């Protein structure tokens, strides 16, 4: 049962710009998100430009020309955060500036909320440009190096690297499968990235989300003060949610000089965020590999002792599921076969009543937990509202509570493995220790 009111309200800030508002005075912090959802053009060059633009927007503004100036400003606003990022949602792209700040009731002089709104406006609409309205060349080159260095470092985290590779291979040709390529980053010129930015901010579909203790009228008033007239509203439609079918399974292996192997199996479920089985999918995931009491965890870790971590994760905007584990390279075949065999069992045999009830309880607990975290509240509503899905947390819980064993079997029978990626550890000792 939900103890706190969990419905968000919608307000129009100005033409074609909505505020999703959630009043909560039980927190000491507030969240403000500025989001731009746009269709991805599935062009790797555009993906590279998007990534570089984000870095440049973080690097300085008219009023705060250096990164250090932005950080100092945030420090002065009682250590508020203000991060700019981008991520994939289905075949669309989300640009987001997200801030977590203390409530103004802790501020002694200026309003923290007002300061953050001003900073967000500066970061998006007033980046640090030269007199020709271009990013400075040395800054462009520096941020290109930053991105390339970041990509180089991805292999340092073998699990995340393996997941990225599986996603790239599985979704090759789809926007979700794209990653930023260093060679494309290095070719971007000062003119190209500046033109890209100008085009980006020319027409925007802006949306705000707020979770905190301020009245809606005050939030709207401050947002209007800073953002009215700053841009032209866009009516570009997002690409609808779509799922591809699995074809012949792709097996790909890469080697890395590490001890442990990382196995990632990407599966196509065909179940998207707006599907009637979407809410049931989180119950399925809990049964299959998503919790400590799931089948894969109990079998491969607890019974077979073949892994330390084992998980399955569902990507609702693409209808994908990824099973991942770190294993000894010699156990790859047996673990891989076990993962597939367990899926087959779920297709042919109904789950037990106890298994189903436990999975539902854990799913409901996770949903209940959302209301304890302002950021989780904002993310929950935004991720659905851009696809026109008006589902409250309570409604989601209601649907989960009604999931049946038949639903679980139906879901299992929709799922097909698509890609098996194995990052094979070559098992060498980690080099030489050299003491000086």
């Amino acid at each position, binding site marked *: 049962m939900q103890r706190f009111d969990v419905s968000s309200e919608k307000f129009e800030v100005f033409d074609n710009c909505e505020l999703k508002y959630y009043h909560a005075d039980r927190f000491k912090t507030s969240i403000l998100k500025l989001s731009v959802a746009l269709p991805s053009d599935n062009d790797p060059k555009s993906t590279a430009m998007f990534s570089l633009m984000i870095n440049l927007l973080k690097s300085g503004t008219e009023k705060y020309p250096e*990164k250090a100036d932005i*950080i100092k400003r945030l420090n002065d606003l009682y250590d508020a955060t203000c991060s700019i990022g981008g991520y994939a949602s289905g075949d669309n792209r989300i640009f987001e500036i997200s801030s977590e700040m203390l409530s103004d009731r802790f501020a002694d002089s200026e309003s923290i909320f007002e300061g953050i709104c001003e900073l967000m406006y500066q970061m998006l609409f007033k980046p640090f440009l030269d007199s020709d309205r271009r990013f400075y060349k040395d800054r462009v080159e*520096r941020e290109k190096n930053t991105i390339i260095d970041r990509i180089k470092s991805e292999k340092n985290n073998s699990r995340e690297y393996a997941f990225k590779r599986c996603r790239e291979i599985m979704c090759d040709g789809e926007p979700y499968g794209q990653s930023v390529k260093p060679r494309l980053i290095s070719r971007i010129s000062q003119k190209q990235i500046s033109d890209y930015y100008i085009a980006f901010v020319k027409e925007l579909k802006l949306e705000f989300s707020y979770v905190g203790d301020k009245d809606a009228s005050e939030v709207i008033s401050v947002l209007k003060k800073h953002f009215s007239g700053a841009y032209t509203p866009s009516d570009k439609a997002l690409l609808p949610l779509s799922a591809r079918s699995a074809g012949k399974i792709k097996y790909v292996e890469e080697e890395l000089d590490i001890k442990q192997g990382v196995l990632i199996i990407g599966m196509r479920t065909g179940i998207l965020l707006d599907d009637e089985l979407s809410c049931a999918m989180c119950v399925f995931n809990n049964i299959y590999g998503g919790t400590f009491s799931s089948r894969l965890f109990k079998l491969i870790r607890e019974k077979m*002792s073949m892994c330390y971590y084992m998980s399955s994760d569902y990507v609702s905007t693409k209808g994908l599921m990824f099973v991942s584990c770190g294993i000894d390279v010699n156990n790859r075949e047996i673990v891989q076969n076990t993962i597939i065999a367990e899926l087959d069992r779920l297709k042919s045999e109904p789950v037990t009543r106890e298994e189903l009830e436990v999975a539902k309880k*854990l799913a409901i607990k996770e949903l209940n937990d959302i209301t304890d975290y302002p950021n989780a509240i904002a993310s929950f509503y935004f991720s659905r509202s851009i696809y026109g899905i008006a589902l409250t947390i309570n409604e989601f819980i209601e649907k989960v509570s009604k999931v049946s064993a038949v639903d679980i079997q139906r879901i299992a029978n929709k799922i097909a493995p698509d890609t098996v990626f194995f990052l094979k550890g070559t098992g060498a000792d980690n080099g030489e220790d050299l003491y000086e």
Partner: protein
Amino acid sequence: MNKFTEYSNTLLSEKYYKFIHGSGLPIFVYPKERQSSCAIFATEFGSINNRFYDINTGKLIDLPDGIAHFMEHKMFDNENGDNVDDIFSRLGADPNAYTSWDHTAYFFTCTSGESFYEGLDKLLSFVSSPYFTEESVAKEQGIIGQEIAMCEDDPYDRCFLEMVRGLYEKNPVRADVVGSVDSIAQITPALLYQCHERFYKPCNMALIVCGDVEAERVLMVTDKHISASSDKTDTRTILPKERIMAYKRRVTQKMAVERPMFCIGFKDSKAPTDPYGRRKRQILTEILIGVIFSSSGELYSSLFKKNLMTTPFNYGEEYGKSYALGYVGGECDDVELLFGEIKKYIKKIKKNGIKKEDFERRKKIIFSSDIKMYDSTWEIASALLDSYLSETDLFDDPELLKSLTLEEANDLLKELICEKRTTYSVVLPN
């Protein structure tokens, strides 16, 4: 509520209750109106507690590395064959545990209400009831073997560990918390039972509960599992005398990384031993390290403009009863050039002192971070545990922070950042 003492902080508008159970177990109950509540049942048995005198035989016992962590895994088994994860899952609760240098914590989160108290009952029951067999120990060696491999493949983890090993010659913080394949092979059921008997006594533990909970009900559940006449005998471990200077000034290793990475450690050998003196020192170190290495600071800005650092430093401090250090790490294509720049900058600020505005800004950041923490039941419970282990009170931190002066920070700067007490740990590409 008669038995509980109330602690409150009017600035934060927060309060909690504490009671020392007849067994010696301190119980903290922190009411917080949230959907979810959490409970932590922790023991002061971590990776550094590896040597003691057996009270029955008087024999000196040296434990194999990784045993505290191994025990943490094994506590999830019980004699009935039920898995503890399953027991909690049936309540819709999410259990977990971790082991650090100086403690092991078992915890769960659960939707507030009756299920929470059922979960608390299970938590106290399973942690108090060890069950180890040859078969289950052998099985766990396989699982932890995979965890060890995962840690050994993590260059950030290795870089940090070698930094600690460079600072400390004898202090057992230099042992890997997870141990090694060889060390965990020495673990037996008898040894695990011995450790449980010694370190899992209520007087060596703490229970922290945060959420929509009632203190009296927590006490009722505790009384079911913890006897007031529990053993209160010696739980001390023997810690070796440690040198003041860093053991090794430079440690280099090669791993499968694309770019060099580094971790610089500063050994605080002169940290006071009294709890509040030590806590004050820790906060001062936090301020100092932040001022020097933050992304808004002069050093990072200059390194970024020179393209020497393209990602921010990561930095922090670790203070326990027997160890104290500050550290900073990151990635850089030319670590030698970077170290030269860092040394030059530190020489400059030691001469001129850190600026008052930077000092005050850092205090503001810590103050704000402390307030934000009170939104999360998990963060509150963790912070309460940390303050208990450091023998201070959580609510004293704001005043402690306020009392710190620029002069104290500049004095610490001269003491803490000293070449002879510094280790440079580097990981180079193969």
